[in-house]
């Protein structure tokens, strides 16, 4: 693979404050690429969904577990990878279905949001080993107006 222009790896505790931290981090990367406000909001939503899934589902809200996020910046795209070493997903195809959730009170739209806001999503998971969600955002270099 082509060498990234920038790469950042971050590891943080599985607590709700750190969802915001992950959002700020991705926003400040996004600001470097001067996206539009809507594009940046979409990136932030996708990252929030992946990170909160890792905390809520992967780690069952155990604050002592660590979530990892890796951001790779290329000229034409951003790759963001969120990893937990938690319970894993038994059937990924099923988990991706709109409105499927293993918890009654949840909407089951996290993966749907990620897929609609990012250009590519890939989920790798093994039971009791954890889950990695890889998201790709293409950077369309628009003309300055």
């Amino acid at each position: 693979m082509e060498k990234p222009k920038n790469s950042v790896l971050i590891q943080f505790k599985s607590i709700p404050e750190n969802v915001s931290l992950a959002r700020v981090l991705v926003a400040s990367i996004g600001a470097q690429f001067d996206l539009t406000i809507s594009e940046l909001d979409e990136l932030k939503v996708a990252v929030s969904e992946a990170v909160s899934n890792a905390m809520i589902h992967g780690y069952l809200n155990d604050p002592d577990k660590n979530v990892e996020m890796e951001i790779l910046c290329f000229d034409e795209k951003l790759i963001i990878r969120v990893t937990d070493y938690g319970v894993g997903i038994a059937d990924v195809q099923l988990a991706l279905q709109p409105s499927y959730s293993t918890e009654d009170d949840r909407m089951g739209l996290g993966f749907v949001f990620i897929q609609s806001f990012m250009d590519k999503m890939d989920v790798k998971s093994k039971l009791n080993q954890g889950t990695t969600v890889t998201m790709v955002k293409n950077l369309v270099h628009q003309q300055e107006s």
Partner: protein
Amino acid sequence: MGEIRRFMRDDSPVKVSRSYKELAVRIYRCKESLTNKLGREPTIGELAEELAVSKEEIVTSLEAIQVPSSIHETVFQ
């Protein structure tokens, strides 16, 4: 899938950098008026509440408008 995107997105062509600049101007104005009112510098939380934005947005916009001024940046240029 495209539906959600169309539904959520206002498709404004405004660039992040401009919106952060505008927010930063409002933050500094608000900081001044709250300092006068409270007799001390407001916290980020108080600014966020007054401006009805998240603390997250305040932090990001304050950094985004940062002019390269510190000692280190001159060396990299």
